[in-house]
């Protein structure tokens, strides 16, 4: 069976050429993503803006790196994301103006990226193109955000991390959900699929577990529904199934405040992943063959998605950057790398210690942290023709020589030469010299500045595990 190539550069860096930015630029060409772009092409660079107060999103420089190379290929790039559904009561990206405020807060601006920043499905999220997906396993159509659907080419630039519903969010998810308009997202959420009783197209409700007016979060819970589908009174919890379109807001609110009334059934998650792969196929159908390149930064691998308004410690230490022309192969490779990597100390693994004994290196980490294996989306992507999960991982090590050091710097020649020229005209250092200092002979002994033994303080640190470890070596 033919294997799709996936290029990979690790997150370690000890010199100029090993900067993640430099390696990402190298991978762009190694994976021949430049071939996706012809001169004059309008190129969508799809990223995740990240929710308000989310800190583990991509850094602007990592995105600008790709913008610059798309421009170098003659493309006319724009960086985009789409409006979201109201995933929680304080959603910050479900309409265009909130989405742009959030993007700006995370540093994604035209000034930092060097190209326009676009909400691809418009102000309200209704600007889309309907695409038939004949090979779809569950979805037979997709609603693709208009700016993406009308672009000539796309760089699908994902942040690889976990996801509370899809288990894992990589390149498939970045377009499978991230490339859909608002109604496309409801469609992909499987809203109104089946009946309210099967819990697949609606929240899994357990009204008997609702604390009613006694719940300290009952007002927030009621307010969290953008359609006013339910209310809570002295008789408990009332729900109008016709109004609900399954945005997860009530579920997120109920679950993350520690309650069990509005939840998911375990079988929802695999179906959601399969639908997501179908929707991703829909996005790919809006492009001609060979016009989409996929890249992912596998760093800050939080167990939850960038759409969650907080960030916790990662699942694994930073892994690196990946590039491929196959969205399924790249995600399969990333997942394998994440599973094979050691667990991040004190991360999600620790939280699971008491419950399931944590996970061991080599185990399916997201299956344990999220409760569902992320591989359904991969297999679905193979079955619906999105891509190939058989991959060949090509590790990339940048050449370390003068020419390559210079390659991705701010100027092609050493900038120190600019300073040398400037000092020829006026040398502020010599004007100030000699600096006023203590005579050299009277210099203080640095021995006097040594700090004493810190063990006493370390033992009192509020992280008990760390405090206990002091002096045990």
């Amino acid at each position, binding site marked *: 069976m033919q294997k799709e190539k996936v290029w990979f550069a690790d997150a370690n860096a000890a010199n100029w050429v090993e900067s993640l930015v430099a390696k990402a630029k190298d991978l762009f060409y190694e994976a021949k993503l430049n071939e996706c772009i012809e001169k004059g092409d309008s190129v969508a660079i799809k990223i995740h803006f990240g929710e308000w107060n989310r800190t583990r999103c991509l850094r602007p420089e990592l995105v600008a790196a790709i913008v610059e190379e798309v421009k170098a290929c003659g493309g006319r790039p724009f960086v985009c994301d789409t409006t979201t559904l109201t995933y929680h009561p304080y959603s910050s990206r479900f309409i265009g103006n909130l989405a742009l405020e959030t993007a700006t807060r995370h540093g994604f*601006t*035209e*000034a930092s990226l060097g190209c326009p920043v676009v909400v691809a499905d418009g102000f309200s999220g209704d600007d889309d193109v309907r695409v038939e997906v004949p090979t779809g396993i569950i979805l037979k159509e997709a609603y693709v955000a208009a700016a993406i659907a009308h672009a000539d080419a796309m760089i699908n630039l994902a942040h690889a991390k976990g996801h509370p519903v899809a288990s894992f969010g990589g390149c498939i998810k970045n377009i499978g959900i991230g490339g859909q308009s608002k109604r496309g997202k409801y469609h992909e959420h499987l809203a109104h699929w089946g009946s309210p009783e099967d819990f697949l197209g609606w929240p899994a409700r357990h009204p008997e577990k609702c604390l009613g007016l006694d719940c300290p979060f009952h007002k927030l819970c009621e307010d969290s529904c953008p359609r006013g589908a339910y209310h809570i009174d002295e008789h408990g919890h009332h729900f109008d199934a016709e109004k609900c379109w399954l945005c997860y807001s009530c579920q997120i609110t109920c679950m993350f405040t520690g309650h069990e009334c509005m939840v998911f059934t375990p079988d929802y998650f695999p179906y959601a992943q399969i639908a997501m792969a179908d929707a991703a196929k829909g996005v790919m159908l809006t492009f001609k063959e060979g016009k989409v390149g996929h890249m992912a930064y596998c760093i800050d691998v939080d167990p939850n998605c960038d759409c969650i308004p907080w960030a916790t410690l990662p699942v694994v230490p930073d892994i690196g950057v990946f590039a491929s022309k196959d969205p399924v192969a790249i995600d399969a490779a990333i997942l394998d790398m994440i599973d094979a990597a050691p667990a991040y100390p004190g991360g999600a693994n620790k939280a699971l210690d008491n419950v399931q004994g944590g996970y061991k290196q080599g185990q399916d980490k997201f299956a344990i942290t999220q409760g569902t294996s992320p591989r359904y989306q991969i297999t679905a992507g193979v079955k619906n023709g999105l891509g190939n999960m058989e991959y060949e991982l090509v590790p990339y090590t940048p050449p370390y020589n003068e020419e390559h050091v210079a390659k991705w710097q701010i100027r092609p020649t050493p900038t120190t030469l600019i300073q040398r020229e*400037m000092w020829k*005209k*006026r040398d502020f250092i010599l004007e100030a010299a000699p600096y006023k200092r203590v005579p050299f002979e009277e210099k203080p002994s640095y021995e006097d500045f040594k700090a004493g033994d810190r063990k006493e303080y370390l033992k009192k640190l509020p992280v008990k595990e760390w405090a206990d470890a002091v002096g045990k070596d």
Partner: protein
Amino acid sequence: MSVVNFVGARERCSSSNLIERFKGTLRRSELQGVFSPGELVAVKFEAGERDNLKYVRPLLVKAVVDAVYSLGGQPLLVDTLSMGSKASEVGRRWLEAVALHGFDVTSLGKSPMLADGYTGEEELLVPIEGDELGGVEVARAIAESQALVVISHVGAHPFAGLSGALVSCGVGCASLRGKERIHAPLRPLFMPDRCDGCGQCEKHCPHEAVRLKDDKPFLDEKKCKGCAYYCTAACPIGAVVIDGYMTKRFQKRAVDSALAVTGALQGKVYYINILMDVCPYPDCYPFSDVPFVPDRGILMSRDPVAIDSAALDILNESSGIRGSIADECDGLESSSDKLLQVTGVDPRDMIYYAKKLGMGSSDFEIRKA
């Protein structure tokens, strides 16, 4: 004979778009001989004081940046500080004005910066031989550049007569200290017979040099830095004036400074005079008044004397705008000496002095695009 390129402001159809004609003329002009590919080219624009509405639009500045890029240069977008704020405030005021006026990396493709630093004290002293100044403090970023393009918004100047290439290069490219020395001869005269003691001059002086005693303003000579525009511009009835012998010295000093700037850049300077929104005050004033001459177009030249002479001729040839200051000064006629009538200062004195210093020639040919 010097060459002055001209693009007219009229736009009759899409293909006569001013920006496109401007960019095209620039690329074909002598600008290409001013710098070599890869060289750092300072593009001096004037961001305009906050609340000024008639500054040169970012679109025109962007056209110059694009032309420099297309000729292989590395543009450096610079402006300098205007006189009159505390060191802790002055850079911040400029940054606010720049943001409000739309000059930023997204509109220009390059972030603008202050050539004389946050406090206006970053400079390089350039010695020259002139009547007034032995040397001029040139804004450091400009002195460090390999070439310079000066974008001037042409208008009347209350102390120089004409605000054009000479003033923008001389005053505009000097650091704050340089500007203070250029302005040093200017001292406001308070006309006791006209003054009604309203106190606006005292209120607006940033250096607290004007004090009212018995409803009459007095100047503290030690505190006055000679910016001379906060007090003159503050007076609603024209009772604060500057004398002719002061403005003559100011004109000479501005030209001396321009000579230093061109010297610092070894003559690699190109001038662009924008004859649009021609107003009675330069852009460093916090107001602009209405234009008094219709938009005429854009001049480009390597010769500051020729380009300012051409600008003066074109303005004087134009008819004035009814209801503007030209109307009040009997300057509506198409042959009237408008700038002299509006400002009371003859810009020809300044141009003549520049010619005498060898900065250029008043013998020029206007080439229309």
